């Protein structure tokens, strides 16, 4: 049942992504279909994750399969909320959903082992830390998808319903809103992570691989926002920086756990 529902979610997410990309190429708005497929996929994915949670006795935070699957879920959820709430975000589905689908393919290629839930993970701070991290990455995905359209030039701007210098500036403003949201939630992720680490391992910060790379992501985001102000950078440069920060965040979220035996030093 758990696997079957994940299969339904994969099909729905794939359909949503295909509709978004196809609609963009053909110049047709398929917003209702994209939203419907994403919502249906999310519902199936939610039940699949809940069944797994119930079966293995812990949330989807431990094995690489769980990390990837839960992030596909949260990225889709954040993107769908932005899609429904902010009309201008909708064209960005053609960029964001293929990325989510790549993560989904990686999920399916990963062994769905149950993992072991360490006793130091039995704290509400873990849930807060993970939740803030997921909002951060989701908001940054939306910003990145919008930034990619800004970088794509007049055609990309046209999909956002913008044109010219003013259109670029307006699109950049939208990008910055989601970057700001990401910055706040990444800061919250770091703070709650430090509280958890102090309780669990007797140190609030120890520069383990995840701490190092998440701090570098925070510094990169702060640097991008500062650089924009200090050098009065234009929308295209700002967009390029946002995409670079997103790449760093993806490396932190999925690259470091991929090469590290435990997510945090001393966790197991």
């Amino acid at each position, binding site marked *: 049942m758990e696997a079957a529902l994940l299969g339904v979610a994969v099909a729905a997410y794939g359909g949503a992504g295909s509709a978004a990309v196809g609609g963009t190429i053909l110049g047709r708005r398929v917003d209702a279909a994209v939203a419907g497929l994403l919502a249906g996929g999310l519902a199936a994915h939610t039940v699949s994750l809940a069944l797994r949670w119930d079966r293995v006795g812990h949330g989807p935070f431990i094995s690489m399969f769980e990390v990837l699957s839960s992030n596909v879920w949260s990225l889709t959820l954040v993107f769908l909320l932005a899609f429904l709430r902010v009309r201008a975000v909708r064209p960005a589905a053609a960029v964001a959903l293929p990325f989510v689908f790549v993560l989904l393919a990686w999920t399916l290629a990963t062994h769905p082992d149950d993992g072991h839930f360490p006793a130091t993970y039995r704290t509400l701070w873990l849930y807060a830390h993970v939740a803030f991290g997921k909002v951060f990455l989701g908001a940054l995905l939306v910003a990145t998808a919008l930034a990619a359209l800004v970088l794509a030039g007049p055609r990309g701007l046209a999909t956002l319903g913008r044109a010219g210098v003013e259109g670029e500036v*307006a699109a950049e403003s939208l990008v910055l809103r989601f970057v700001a949201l990401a910055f706040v939630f990444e800061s919250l992720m770091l703070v709650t992570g430090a509280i958890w680490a102090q309780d669990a391992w007797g140190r609030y910060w120890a520069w383990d691989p995840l701490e190092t790379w998440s701090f570098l992501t925070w510094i990169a985001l702060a640097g991008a926002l500062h650089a924009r102000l200090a050098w009065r950078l234009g929308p295209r440069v700002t967009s390029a920086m946002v995409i670079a920060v997103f790449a760093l965040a993806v490396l932190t979220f999925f690259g470091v756990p991929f090469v590290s035996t435990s997510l945090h030093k001393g966790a197991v």
Partner: protein
Amino acid sequence: MSAIPAPAPRPGLLRTLASTRLTLAVLAVIAVAVVANAQVEGGTPAALAGAFGLGAANLAAALVVQARLRADLALFVFHLALLALLGLAAAGRLMALDGTVELAQGEIFDGQLLTREAGPLHRDRLARLRFVNDGFTIDYAPGVKRGRTANDVRVFGDDGGVTRHVIGDIDPLVLDGYRFYTTSNKGFATLFRWVPRGGRAPERGAVHLPSYPLNAHRQAQSWRIPGTAREAWVMLEMAREPIESGRPSRFQLPESHRLVLVLGDERRELRPGDSAATPEGVLVYEGLTAWMGYRVYYDPTLPWLLASALIAVGALAAFYVRRFRVPAGAGA
């Protein structure tokens, strides 16, 4: 005749230090220091301290010089809280203590640490603290995966009162700001009584065997018998390992065991109550118990760090909420 234009005033040190362009360079320096710290074995604390010190100087100067930064309350508070975070983290390092101690079951903590790293401004109050390790249980899942640790401790207060606590995993014992954490470092300890010849008082002590189950196949230890030059070596042999990979287990004393004792060229097997005589005295094996390794951490800035971090995030959120309250598309 035209007046010679006065040369443009050179920016002072403070203004240079407050430059937002310098901020970018500082952020890059911090990033390089963080990467170097991750790459070098043992870290590069001096480089980190230097980079963050430079960041603090830039931030402090910007708060003094940049009127734009002070004009917006939320932005000002955010940067002030960041500066406080850096200052508190530095102060914390100067006043902190990070150490370890091992206590056998029934042993009272006497303020002595096994390892110890303390900042130069740390005022040691460990000698005032008293608690006893009353034993612990640790569950293991198949595959020797450590589960919940429950360590019973009794704390002796200054007023003579005794309080009981169960600590472990995410619940440290906090005494006068010192935080005692159970760790994965724990094992078995052999209890001996040494009765020296010549009427001197007997001594009791515990010999901690290597951490278990990490060193399940190396349960041996050597030590010097007190007041003598004699080296002793013991090895624990268990009839059955308490923690087995193939089933759920619990850290507990083995159902039956024997102890191999080597004194010089002589090898003996001991069971609880057995003794071994030497020219200097008699060594009595009293039995097996368990020891727990604790991490001891003290940093008086922790609550202030948390408050500063929360204020920083709150101010950042307030700044962005106000900034983006205008409709989308109205400009950055």
